[in-house]
């Protein structure tokens, strides 16, 4: 294991921020920590990095206990914070070079790594820019470059795409994948389930400081009773027809509004065929049909009874 967190407890006075949290991150994976705002993701990361004192539990990184003075461990960690952590007075190049020089002593190596990081995040045209001259997306890319320039083995990204436009977000996600392909283990925290689904090989869902489920995205979806969600553009449906549809096998929930029929089915196959059969046999006019598999939000909803973004 690259990171192993056991029974981590962290209190802010009376508030229990982490409640016997357990995490295990394997080498070479992109591990997602998914949870709503205030669920304890950042607190967990700060404890893992020995920035925050914790009340109970143990943290090991690269097989060694993590401490504030564990410089040999810190040397191999890269962190990309939720807030952009760069000096406003230094240019893009100087910022990356400065943070890289905290990890690498050799001046030539720092220069080379800085240039590589700039290319990696595509900031070649902005090397002499001060951070205040950069757009939100470019600033996030600079933030990433400052965290990964020294080529660490473990990269921790704490909600790196907050307030970033979709185009920049995709670029950031692509680069994280590339970092992983280059051999880095990645811990990625987010409350955007789409990002975590798209990026992470394994995911822990966290709520109220506690891990409520861990697994691959398919494993997580298999934990719940819901199957596919079918949306049909249908016209003039009556109440009794909706009731009849509810009685079709494997149907869990039927909703109808604004000419959109939304059916949540239980786990099982051929739910779509049964629905289409019913619509045809009752001469109900219908248009477009969409189906989608359950999302991590559905998983979160079923386990906690609330939406991921509540």
């Amino acid at each position, binding site marked *: 294991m690259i990171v192993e967190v056991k029974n981590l407890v962290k209190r802010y006075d009376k508030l229990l921020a982490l409640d016997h949290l357990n995490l295990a991150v394997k080498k070479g994976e992109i591990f997602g920590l998914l949870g709503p705002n205030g669920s304890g993701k950042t607190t967990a990361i700060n404890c893992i990095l020995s920035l925050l004192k914790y009340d109970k539990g143990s943290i090991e990184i690269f097989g060694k206990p993590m401490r504030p003075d564990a*410089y040999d461990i*810190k040397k191999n960690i890269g962190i990309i914070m939720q807030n952009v952590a760069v000096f406003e007075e230094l240019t893009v190049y100087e910022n990356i070079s400065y943070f890289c020089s905290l990890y690498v002593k050799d001046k030539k190596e720092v220069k080379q790594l800085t240039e590589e990081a700039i290319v990696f995040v595509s900031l070649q045209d902005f090397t002499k820019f001060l951070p205040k001259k950069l757009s939100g997306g470019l600033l996030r890319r600079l933030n990433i470059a400052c965290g990964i320039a020294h080529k660490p083995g473990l990269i921790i990204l704490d909600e790196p795409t907050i307030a970033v436009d979709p185009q920049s977000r995709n670029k950031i996600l692509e680069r994280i994948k590339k970092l992983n392909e280059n051999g880095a283990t990645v811990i990625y925290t987010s409350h955007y389930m789409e990002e975590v689904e798209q990026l992470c090989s394994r995911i822990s869902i966290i709520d109220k400081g506690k891990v409520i489920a861990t697994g691959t995205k398919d494993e997580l979806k298999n934990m719940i009773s819901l199957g596919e969600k079918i949306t049909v553009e249908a016209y003039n449906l009556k109440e009794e027809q909706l009731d009849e549809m509810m009685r079709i096998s494997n149907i869990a929930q039927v909703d109808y509004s604004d000419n959109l029929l939304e059916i949540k089915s239980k786990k099982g196959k051929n739910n779509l065929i049964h629905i289409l059969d019913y619509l045809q046999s009752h001469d109900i006019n219908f248009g477009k049909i969409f189906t989608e598999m359950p999302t991590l939000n559905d998983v979160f909803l079923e386990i906690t009874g609330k939406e991921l973004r509540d």
Partner: protein
Amino acid sequence: MAFQLYKTRIKCLCRNYEIIFWSFGFPLFLAIFFYMGFNNLAKGESIDTIPVAAVTEDGGENEFIRTMEAVQITKDKRLFKVELKTLDDARAMLQNDKIAGYIVYSDKPVLHIKNMGIEQSIVKSFVDSYLSRKGTINNISNSIDINQEEANKDFTDVLAGYKDYLVDGRAGDKNPDYTLIYFYTIIALTCMFGTNWGFREMVDIQANQSAVGARINISPVHKMKLLSCNLLAAFTLHYLSILFLLAFLNKVLRIELGQRTGMILLTCMLGSFCGIALGAMVCVAVKTNVKVRGAILNVIVMGGGFLSGMMIVDVKYMIAAKAPFVGYLNPSSLITDAFYCLYYYDGYNRLFENLFMLCILTVVFGAVAYFEIRRREYASI
């Protein structure tokens, strides 16, 4: 690596225009402002040679006029410029404000003036004094048998004593000018602007104060090593700002700072240390948000300046008389007083007393900051 960190930090601080302005620009503006204000004040209080016309019966000089011309303000500057004129010319000159007044001398001098002012008062005072002393000497010479020529010589000598009251009381090269204190308070204020530098360094190194601080705390560099590099960079620039001000005061505004350059530099260095340490302490010891802490720091710095006599010089004397311990606890006051000692006193006792107290305060401020910052984990971020 340490030098690289130091160099980058210098670069970073140099581009913080706000902090640069307060340390390099503001004291200069203040010095110019004070200079303009006090220069006019001094000008208003200075005495120039007073033009006077004299009208005698024979149109020639007499003993009175010679005595008048002998009176000096300073070694090379006379108090009166006496011109012998006819009565009509003298009146015309007075009418045209060419002279402060004219004196008609027949058996005794009679002063004629247009308006009453400082110059007229001085002339009147001189004439009154002359008449009074002449009367005294006449009485004495009438009562005893004395050669009239010798009596006149003695009389001139007696009157010459008049200039003693007017000659500038300068002793050696030291000018007892209380306005210097104002300029010394500006130097002290500049030293205290070190608080901004110390404050900034603490914000940037603590994980619970800034995102950059958090990133730094995660890096494999010992926090104290990095802080040392950063504080050294801050001190370098801050000390430069003080030297810049000293050069401006001394070379451009011609403000006298004394001749003991080494001690002046030492005082500034200790002042800079004290300012940086005070800023660091307030940043880590006051538990509130950054803006409020910054405001508290400004109050401390400006309050210290006020108590050291920056706004009203009498405050400094009042503190020294009624609450001397306040002066000992106020770095601005200690620095101002140290400069005062360097200029006025030949001895070192009072200077060293000030510098010693400055060292004590620096150590206390620094120690509080160190014990607060040495922790490596935070209860909350």
